[in-house]
């Protein structure tokens, strides 16, 4: 069955089965009547505002939008969206959203999760949602700390992190969520930053247009337990050296006046950062998010130094077409009806060898 439908009039093909809003919407249509209860200064506010501001652009009937979350600070998100929503249990949002999205293709389903929720307790559900390619948009708020339990290290915390549970420093090597997602066969993987509303909105736009599971890692500041974790990416001056903005089809250059660039090391095949010169300018890698092979996207995800965050790419790492699970599930139902006719319960119950007792 094609994704396009005459019922939906959406301009985004991936959402064509979702009914369109009858009237123009504004940001306030997506604000619920609930008081927002994050700590003052939390990065979550900026993300909430960006999402509420972006939603009208989709033009979808808001009753057909659902936000599903797990447990953690970020997972309070659905309460603040005036759509349908479920604040579930720790780590399980991708599983619950999968059931919803695969049974209701007329819905736009969003998952809001955090680094602990998605990568620790819910790691299994995350990777399986990604490999299945269910039509879900997963917003992973990564603040590299446990906030709601008051400051233990998380699976994305840097090694040696001093926290309440690791007074002598954490021992675990962290996950890189983008690397993990690419390794889990994700068809869309992006990274953005809470404070860069324009970039965040652009990434949301591309994720919404993607057919299948989209993972968006959002670097989010926890000003209480891990303040300034991403400051190097936000401070205008430092960001020049630290942030690499990925744009599909464009050479990967950054730094003052694009003085730095990413090239492939001829010896190892790995990627490295060089100062751009007239000699090497032609060798600067052109970003191809749609490459069938995940190799380069993965290499890009490894560029950043996990401690200093220098050379952190943001933007869409990977965006490829793959069969969408819920579409195929629906197709199987359709072809079962085509092959066997619509289910006839009386015939089913009376199947097999039967015998009759007469009075």
């Amino acid at each position: 069955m094609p994704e396009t439908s005459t019922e939906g009039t959406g301009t985004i093909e991936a959402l064509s089965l979702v009914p369109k809003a009858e009237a123009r919407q504004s940001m306030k249509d997506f604000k619920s009547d609930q008081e927002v209860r994050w700590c003052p200064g939390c990065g979550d506010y900026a993300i909430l505002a960006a999402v509420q501001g972006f939603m009208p652009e989709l033009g979808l009937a808001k009753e057909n939008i659902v936000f599903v979350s797990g447990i953690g600070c970020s997972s309070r998100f659905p309460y603040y969206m005036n759509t349908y929503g479920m604040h579930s249990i720790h780590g399980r949002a991708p599983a619950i959203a999968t059931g919803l999205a695969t049974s209701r293709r007329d819905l736009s389903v969003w998952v809001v999760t955090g680094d602990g929720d998605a990568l620790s307790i819910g790691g299994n559900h995350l990777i399986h949602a990604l490999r299945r390619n269910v039509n879900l948009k997963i917003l992973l708020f990564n603040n590299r700390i446990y906030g709601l339990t008051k400051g233990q290290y998380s699976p994305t915390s840097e090694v040696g992190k001093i926290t309440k549970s690791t007074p002598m420093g954490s021992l675990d090597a962290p996950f890189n969520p983008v690397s993990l997602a690419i390794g889990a066969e994700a068809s869309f993987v992006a990274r953005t930053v809470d404070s860069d509303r324009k970039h965040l909105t652009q990434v949301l736009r591309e994720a919404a247009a993607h057919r299948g599971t989209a993972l968006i890692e959002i670097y989010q500041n926890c000003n209480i337990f891990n303040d300034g974790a991403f400051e190097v990416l936000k401070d205008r001056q430092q960001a020049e050296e630290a942030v690499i903005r990925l744009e599909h089809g464009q050479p990967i250059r950054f730094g003052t006046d694009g003085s730095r660039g990413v090239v492939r090391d001829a010896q190892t095949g790995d990627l490295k950062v060089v100062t751009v010169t007239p000699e090497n300018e032609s060798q600067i890698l052109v970003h191809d998010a749609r490459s069938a092979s995940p190799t380069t996207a993965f290499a890009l995800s490894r560029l950043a130094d996990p401690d200093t965050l220098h050379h952190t790419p943001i933007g869409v790492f990977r965006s490829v077409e793959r069969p969408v699970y819920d579409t195929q599930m629906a197709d199987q139902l359709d072809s079962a009806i085509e092959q066997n006719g619509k289910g006839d319960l009386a015939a089913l119950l009376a199947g097999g060898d039967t015998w009759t007792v007469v009075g």
Partner: protein
Amino acid sequence: MTSQVSSPAEQADEAVVGEQRKPAGTTKDVRRLDRVIIRFAGDSGDGMQLTGDRFTSETATFGNDLSTLPNFPAEIRAPAGTLPGVSSFQLHFADHDILTPGDAPNVLVAMNPAALKANLADLPRGAEIIVNTDEFTKRAMQKVGYDTSPLEDGSLDGYSLHPVPLTTLTVEALKEFDLTRKEAERSKNMFALGLLSWMYHRPTEGTEKFLKSKFAKKPDIAAANIAAFRAGWNFGETTEDFAVSYEIAPATTAFPVGTYRNISGNLALSYGLVAASRQADLPLYLGSYPITPASDILHELSRHKNFGVRTFQAEDEIAGIGAALGAAFGGSLAVTTTSGPGVALKSESIGLAVSLELPLLVIDIQRGGPSTGLPTKTEQADLLQAMFGRNGEAPVPIVAPCTPADCFDAALEAARIALTYRTPVMLLSDGYLANGSEPWRIPELDELPDLTVQFAQGPNHTLDDGSEVFWPYKRDPQTLARPWAIPGTPGLEHRIGGIEKEDGTGNISYAPANHDFMVRTRQAKIDGIEVPDLEVDDPHEAKTLVLGWGSTYGPITAAVRRLRTAGESIAQAHLRHLNPFPRNLGVVLGRYEKVVIPEMNLGQLATLIRAKYLVDAHSYNQVNGMPFKAEQLAKALKEAIDA
């Protein structure tokens, strides 16, 4: 076939020998029996389950009442020829209404020394034993600890032994076929089936048809199996060792008028779910993770996509129930199927479903525990887990089917409760019901209950300022159910979650009085579920009541019949609803001097009964992975009566 109506007493285990005659066209005697218990036993790879299934199907088609007990190891192929590798299938069939797969086989088919050794202790003296002598090599016998051949050392004196070189005869019968010896040997189970089919005058067309369709892509193999099957039949007809064959008349009077089929518990449960989906007019969504003995429900439902059934094989048990809960939020009839270890993993999600107050069926096909326990054996030890296995006060209704065919009705009943009261419901089946089978009267569709539900369509509350709003936790005053407002319904956008909610609005609330109220209200909703009164079978105004639940129905009823035949007075009642209990249960318990509760656990129902009704209930327990035997249970009940 079981029913609450009184029926002929289940006799002692010895086969009753009736008239003897010689039908036309044969020189052999035919004896008439009223019932027989046959056990097929062999190596895990010998195809004993298939052989048993086929014999059962022939027997069902013939019109006998029947009850089956498959029994197999958890290993797919345990080491060949060893005791742990023995797989068996027991079938009890009769010309009258029976209740159990039978205590002790009248006939054992032993395909190798291990099968003989593992099953001999269950056989009464005088039982017939058919052994495949080809497998009784010195090495095979030593493997299971036979120093001398039991076929020759006199240890089987007192049994009626039929030594048959099954393998040799099968290979000989198939010599015209272009098969290797190994391939030909594989058909020996069909030879055995042919022989038994001759012995008991079973119709053969069904098996031949089955073999043709099973091996449709390999016509040679189909033909070879049919040839082996016929050779087994002819062997019985011609060999002098089998002097007698038996007739067991159809159980015409045991069955109410109707069309019947043989059905296993898991199949009946699967059909019950499809039927519930139709009766509710909601799409069925199964989120599940493979686990023995529940996987067959996943397999079965995955075949019925043309009924709009969605089956999702999740990455783990938690995702199975998670996906189901997501689908429930979206308006599906949502189901998750599992066994005890899976329920443990799903506990937190069941608690979430309690808090969200969404309909959800949690189907637990119980097996031996704790931990991995006995994956392929039966037990009833998840009752307290179903009742209490969650954090906080999280009441969940519990429904338990009592026979394989009853799994169909139990699924519809569980769906009725879930949909009416917007709650997760536990359905407790077990390995015995799941794999066992019996005749089932196929219901007419108009006999099925109406399960249609009304989704919320608009505002349900008026604020003080006169504005109309939707409150997701404003309850129906009768059922205390909250409205089910599914995404896609304009104007009813709302958020639900596992955090405590304010009564009515559903907004997050940590207020002490509100939490107290919500906990009590959720409990009151479950306590108030309408369930039928408990029926008591007590023809003689007995002083002792035997109370059971779930799959012990057959053995308990068989034991009660034995006792009554022997002149004892005993009352019997069987619980289908474990939470809430039927309203009249307390009154019923109060009528008896003694209450005995047999369970395949260490007294879980007895614990609940004692706590709730302050009744000094006596437990009778067995946890050996097998169903109760009627004789043993009758003895225990007699002791309770006399105590």
